[in-house]
């Protein structure tokens, strides 16, 4: 259990840091989506299923969609 949780936390940190460094904004959005998805799994493992459902549906699905639509209407690459 502790190994799974620590692996997930490390993966989450890596995704968060890469979301900061990506110049391609679409990749950055996918990296922040990874953060939300791993957070949802962590909430479930830590026995908070209510929050896990909210995080998976809002953080992972809807926010990512809104970001992708925003990128489509503006520029894809950071200058």
């Amino acid at each position, binding site marked *: 259990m502790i190994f799974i949780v620590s692996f997930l936390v490390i993966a989450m940190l890596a995704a968060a840091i890469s979301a900061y460094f990506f110049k391609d904004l679409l990749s950055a959005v996918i990296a922040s989506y990874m953060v939300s998805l791993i957070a949802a799994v962590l909430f479930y493992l830590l026995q908070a299923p209510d929050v896990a*459902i*909210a995080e998976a*549906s*809002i953080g992972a699905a*809807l926010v990512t969609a809104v970001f992708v*639509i925003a990128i489509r209407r503006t520029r894809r690459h950071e200058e």
Partner: protein
Amino acid sequence: MRKIIGIILLIIIAWGIIISLQNVPFGTSRSEVADRYINKGVEETGAANIVTSVVVNYRSLDTLGEVTILFLAAIGLGAVLATTIRKEDRDTEKASLILSTGCKFLFPFILLFGAYIFIHGHLTPGGGFQGGAIIASAFLLMYLGCHNEKRINETGIIISESLGGLVFVIIGLIGLAVGTHHFLNNFMPKGEFNTLLSAGIIPIIYIAIGFKVGSELSRIIDQLMEES
């Protein structure tokens, strides 16, 4: 120079946090209200899900505030997007038959799952906000898979959103007249524990929240997809 000032400020903030946390014993429960919820929650509200009993029974006024914030955010987004000039229609490739058929096939099941989540909010994990978000993601799938083929009925969504808000407030106002005479008190019979018709006003309020959140988020997606 600015960096040095920043570091000094950070040190002062860290010192303040250390000072204020020194007297707090770690590892012991400091919150008495949490014990009350865990020990008495089931008995007082009749809801099997303690999170729900806190969100919709003990702290239902906060939930009304949250719903209002979401409503204002949706209205603000609509006002911002309504003023932008619509672009010319871009050349969009039509989705393949497999994709659009798959989306149409999955759509009612996702809607059903969202409805299940908020109807069973007092028994199983989840509730109005989660179920509403899942329903909105079903509409998002429909917009992505069947691009510009179908649109949400604008009038229907406004009616369901308004009805959700009205039911929430009216049930709260009925609570002023009966029961313990405060806003949003649980005046209805508790029913048999762990069945669908139990926990008084909690399932009704969660169904109202589910309709309201689902239609608000769906309308946000509708407005965004329309402009792009």
